[in-house]
Structures are given as structure tokens and as C-alpha cells.
């Protein structure tokens, strides 16, 4: 098969990935417990920017000089994921700066 499914050429590789997947889910559940309402939107926005990690998948998928439909899809994926990442972190920062600016203004 194709090289892109590399780590799944062994059963061990798959089981290891599944383990990582399950543990990361548990970690995510435990990671946040109490969030003040002020931070709901920035946290959502920041987590959203992190879910732009699919940029890595897009880069891997675009690594081809064939220029066929698969590469074009991957190319669009790079653009969208980059917008998600760059825009997401910037807009989160913008929100947080305002919350911080407010505190400084209050003192």
C-alpha cells in the first residue's frame, strides 16, 4: 500500500496510536474543570486554533509534485488550516489583551 499509512503497517503501531488516542482523550477531560465565564470565548477560540493541527496532515498530504486532484485538495487544506491557526491564535490574543488591558486600567 501507500507509504502514507506508514505506522499502521504493523499491528503494534496501530495499538500504540490507539493507546495515545485514548489517553489524550482522558487528559482532555481532566485538563479543564473551572473556567470563569470571561474566559469561555478565549478558551474556545484558543482550543479551536489548536485543532488547526490538521495543518500537519495537510502538509504531509501536499508533499507530491503530481499536481493531481489529491494534491489540490491538500493544497486547499493547507490554506484553510493555516487561516484557522494564524487567525485563531491572533484573535484569541486580541481578546486576551483586552481583558488584560482592562485590569491595568483598573489599577
Amino acid at each position, binding site marked *: 500500500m501507500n507509504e502514507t499509512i506508514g505506522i499502521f503497517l504493523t499491528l503494534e503501531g496501530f495499538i500504540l496510536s490507539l493507546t495515545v488516542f485514548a489517553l489524550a482523550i482522558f487528559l482532555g477531560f481532566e485538563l479543564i474543570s473551572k473556567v470563569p465565564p470571561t474566559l469561555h470565548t478565549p478558551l474556545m477560540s484558543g482550543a479551536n486554533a489548536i485543532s488547526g493541527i490538521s495543518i500537519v496532515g495537510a502538509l504531509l498530504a*501536499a508533499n507530491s509534485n503530481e499536481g493531481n486532484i489529491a494534491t489540490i485538495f491538500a493544497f486547499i487544506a493547507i490554506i484553510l488550516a*493555516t487561516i484557522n491557526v494564524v487567525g485563531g491564535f491572533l484573535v484569541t490574543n486580541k481578546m486576551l489583551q483586552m481583558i488584560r488591558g482592562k485590569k491595568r486600567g483598573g489599577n
Partner: protein
Amino acid sequence: MVDFSTLLDLGYLISATLFIFGIKKLSSPKTAPQGNLYGALGMLVAVLVTVFKMQLSDQGIEGWMWIVIGLGIGAVIGYWMATTVEMTGMPELVALFNGFGGAASALVALSEAIKVYTADDYAIAEPIFQVYHLIPILAIGASALVGWMTLTGSLVAMFKLKGGFYLPLSKKDEKGRRKWVNFPTWGPSWLNYVKSLLFILGIIMIILSLNNPGNVGLIIGIVLLSCVLGILFVLPIGGADMPVVVSLLNSLSGIAAAFTGFVVGNTVLIIAGSMVGAAGLILTFIMCKAMNRELFDVLFKAFGGSEKQSLTRTKVGSDPEEVAMVLDGISKCIIVPGYGMAVSQSQHLVKEFADILEENDVDVSYAIHPVAGRMPGHMNVLLAEANVPYEKLIEMDEINSEFSECDVALVIGANDTVNPAARSGEGPLGGMPIIDADKAGVVVIIKRSLSVGYAGVDNDLFYEDKTMMLFGDGKKMMAELNSALKEL
């Protein structure tokens, strides 16, 4: 000898660690900006590691052009959108970014599917029916199902947050604007069965694709079905619940990224994706709790649907001079901001109003409803922009007891969050916690008309004798009120 390219995988560990601490720090006010920085840093590490790894692989990077141009275009658009956005438009932007993330995951899965299915050696790649060879195919299907749903759902959520859109190509009015179309909320109860059916159908198609790997038609079927599902999923949910929906979609886009990780066989995608998926779900529950709503009710019981109450009563409006006279000599005033303040961009005038009162020794504070505006924290961010001190913004639970000794409550552009109908426990607003503005001595409400809010419920508060309505745009009315106060 140790392969350097394999060692680079440790970079992904650094990246994943930065994400974990990033999310953790984002949930606390003091460390939040640092947390965001950690997240961005983690992303940078992940991208750099990936590029190095590709360059070091046997064939090197073959698609430099695609990669550099793609990153460039994305970065410019992302930067432009994030820096030009108005404070009022931020919730919509988060929804849109979220849709892009989901679409990116789904497109990667699609791209890989085409590559796998059209590979020359595909037919001879037997024995394919080893269970672990089926995993990428399963992941391609799952990523498609979740990813496209995230895209269309987020787009609908975005338009719902905006309230509608300008119809392209329609006639322009005298102000040069095109026709405004309200985004519909539509969802009879039988639609839930359709949604369930479509979802089950999607699962069946994924299972079918396992038996027919290489069947592109099935993948396209899953894509289309998922797009429709995303639209139907969000369409019945009222605008007031959109923050919860966007948060849930954010969780879904994380899951889509994790599935894509299984497709391309990349651990950082799996870790970051599943972590955001889980943390996003927890945040969704936290937000539901703040609104006193059950997630199930939000998703499957239409709220603020198409049945808006028609208005049968009228109320005579007051003018700013009258209100200014009432405000003269009071000792305590609480300002209750809502989405209307955000839309009219009147937060600076609200601050000016507070300054004028404070000069006359009036105690001024702000009552912040957890879901005032279109997203939690929306009001805090706006008022912060106008330099309102942090300690003046008081959360609903703490300030509600103060209204009984408050002379004037100034409600600006809020409706559902001060609607006493919520206390009855019935109707669309039933059970939602509200700000007790109606317990103040005099209630001044700045609003464009008596029209109903997002929940579609008429507001008794407007018609009470102690209520003074200032009909008009928030900014205009605040300006007039401020100048009337100065003339006193």
C-alpha cells in the same frame, strides 16, 4: 545508527506538551495570554518538525511550491481576518475559523483516500484485509463524516450569529446596502429522526467502505451526507444557544483532526485533536451550566424557534431629557448591557455616562449576564475596550441582590436576559437565570423597538409603569442621554 528523522518525532512530543500546558493556562485569567502563546509555539514546532521530516525523507519535499504558497495565502488571510475584525464580529469569526479547521481535516482525509485508491500498487497490495490495514479506511470515513459536518454546521452557526446576510446581487437601497435576509430557524420535531437516520446511514456507509475499499462513490456519499447533516444539526437551534453549538463544533473539529491523524499516521494530530475534542466537550458542558441549560435540550429541543410571539401591547417612549431628570440626585445605578450595546458600538458612550454619574457621587456598576451578547464574556471584552475597570463588572449571581437598593437600572440593548418570564419556568426562556433589573426603582431601557429577543418571547418588563423606554439606536440614545445629563 539512529535515524535523525525518527529523532525528530521527539519534536512532536514537545509540541504536544506545549498544547497541554497551553489549554491548561488558557483556563485561568492570569496565565491565559501565556497559554495562548504556548499553543502558538506548539503549532510552530509541529509545522517545523513536519517540514524537516519531509525534507529528510527518501524523496525529500516534492511539493515545495504547494506548501509555501498554501502557507503564505493562509497566513495572509488569517492575519487579515483576525486584525480587521470588529469586536462585535468575533463570535462569528471563531465559528468560521472552526469550520475551516474541520474542512481542512476532511480535505486531508479525502486527499489521502484518493491517493490510496488510485495508487498503482493498490490492487496488488493484498493481503489488505488485515485488520490494521482497514484502520486508515475507517479513519478516512470517520474523518469525512465529522469534518464536513463541522464545516457546514459552523457556517450555519456563523450566519445565525450574524442574524442573516446581505443577499448578493439584490438591488441596493439608498445607503448602498443590499437586501438583508434573516437567517431562518427551522426545526419541526420530526427533524430529529431525520438527523438520527442520516447519522446511522453515515455509519453504515463507513462500514460498507471497509468491504469495498477503493469505492470513491461511497466516500463522496459520506461527504454529501455529512454536509447535509451539519446544516440540519444547527438549523433548528436558536441564536441564543449558538455559543454552546460553536463550542460543540469546536470539539468535533478536534475529533476530526484526530481521525485524520489515524489516516496519515501522525501522533501529534492524534494527541492534539483528541485532547481538543475532549476539552471542548467539557467546555461545552461548562457553558451549558452557566446558561442553566441541558446540552440535550439545546441540541434536540428547538429554542427560540420560528414561533415568535406577536406583540399586542404598546408603550409610550420617553425622551433623554426625562431620563436625565430621573437620574438627577440618585445614589446607585446599575448598567445592564446586552447585544444591542455591541451592535451599536456604544460601549465608550456607556463609559462616559458612568463617568458623568460618578462625578455626581453615584455608585455605578455593571451587571454581566453570563450569556449577554452572543458569546460568554462578550460584554467583558467590549467594556474592557472602553476602559471600564475590571471590578465594576459584576457577575449576575453577585449583583442580583443589589437591585432592590438600586435607584435606576439602565438596560442597554438587552432583552431576554432581563425578561421576568424566565422565572415562571415555562416557555422557551423557562429556567434561564436572569438579571433582576425589574427589582430596581426605575428601569430605563434603551432599545430600538419593543420587538422580541432571540427567544421570541414578549417582555413584560417593557410595559411596567416604572419602566422608561428610550427607543432608538444605542449609540444615538446614549449620546443624547449624556448631553442631557451634562445640561442639568
